């Protein structure tokens, strides 16, 4: 009775057979078409699994460091509605600007945010509009019914990552309650919200934890 080596082929490729067993398998494979055919399957599977291991997508470090939450853009219908609203706003702004200052049309709006009160007065609100400029993004923040900052205080605008609770200062609001800030495009993905804080003029650069307005940025 012929003894086949098909169940030892994996061990042969992995280098787990002894010298005698290896020579025995070799001699058998020279003459056994059945085992040679099986060897092709084992070799292909072996090489493919080695490749999968070498380029494995799951590494121990990835297992202990989960991915951050995915920022899913707004659904299409929301985009359409928002876009339509933005178009109206942009057109109105464009007409106003042209009529007042004789300037050319506004740059493209890429995102908007509606700012609602947090620690500030209930009647306070605001908005942020992100325009696309050739080299960067520009965010224009305007507020309504925001009282003048108390003596030795000022309002500051921040980009916010609510998930990681990270904040990035953009700059100060003018006494009229508005401001325009230049932003790198990548930051808008990393920080999907806008925050306006009331800061004491005490030399501390960190956020005061007094957020008067806040809103999520929505792409349009």
């Amino acid at each position, binding site marked *: 009775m012929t003894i086949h080596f*098909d*169940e*030892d*082929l*994996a*061990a042969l490729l*992995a280098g*787990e057979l002894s010298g005698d067993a290896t020579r025995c398998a070799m001699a058998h494979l020279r003459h056994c078409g059945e085992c040679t055919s*099986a060897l*092709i*399957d*084992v070799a*292909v*599977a*072996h090489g*493919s*699994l*080695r*490749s*999968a*291991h*070498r*380029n*494995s*997508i*799951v*590494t*121990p470090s*990835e*297992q202990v460091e989960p*991915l*951050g939450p*995915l*920022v*899913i*853009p707004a*659904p*299409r219908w929301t985009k359409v509605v928002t876009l339509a609203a933005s178009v109206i706003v942009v057109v109105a702004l464009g007409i106003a600007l042209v009529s007042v200052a004789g300037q050319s049309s506004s740059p493209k709006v890429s995102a908007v945010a509606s700012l609602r009160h947090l620690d500030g007065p209930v009647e306070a609100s605001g908005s942020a509009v992100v325009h696309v400029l050739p080299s960067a993004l520009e965010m224009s923040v305007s507020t309504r019914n925001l009282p003048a900052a108390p003596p030795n205080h000022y309002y500051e605008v921040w980009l916010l990552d609510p998930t990681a609770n990270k904040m990035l200062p953009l700059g100060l609001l003018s006494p009229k309650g508005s401001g325009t800030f230049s932003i790198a495009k*990548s930051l808008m*993905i*990393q920080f999907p919200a806008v925050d306006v804080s009331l800061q004491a003029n005490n030399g501390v650069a960190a956020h005061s934890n007094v957020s008067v307005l806040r809103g999520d940025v929505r792409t349009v």
Partner: protein
Amino acid sequence: MTDVNSITQGVGARDLDYAAGLRDGDERAFELAYREHGATVRNYVRRFVTVDEADDLTQQTFLELWRFHDRLDVSKPVLGFILGIARKRSIDHLRRRRHDVVDVNAIRSLMSTEGDALVDQLVWAAEVEHGLATLVAEQREVLVLAHFEDLTQVEIAERLGIPLGTVKARMARGMKKLAEKIERGDLL
């Protein structure tokens, strides 16, 4: 040590099941794609940029996948399409680093044919892992222990408490099955 289950569970979803949904803008398919391939994309871009930049680039990649989902060719692996986006974003990112030192090797491995080969290898690895995940549990288990944990057949028999002959038989059947799937192009 790599957890056997983490490998096979990590490839549970099958591209063809959700590729069409992804192409049609289905949000659930988009989330599945992120869950399925997010770690791969981050691992890939991490070869060229810092950890923080890798997270940012991963988000950018999936944002672009969402924007251009209608360009997805559902007859090809989704991961290939996603890694193609990640590769372009990585190149753009490194080009913008005007004031930082840019790793020449990173640029080379992204932009040359070496960059194509790396993406192909990652896609192939993911396909093989898909195929592995579809084997019966007994065969998959011994193959993962042998190829992802580098255990010998004797060590596998000891770990699982089964005869060496059973390990050999399961391994032989599993490899034959996997080879058949590879030959038929039936890994996904």
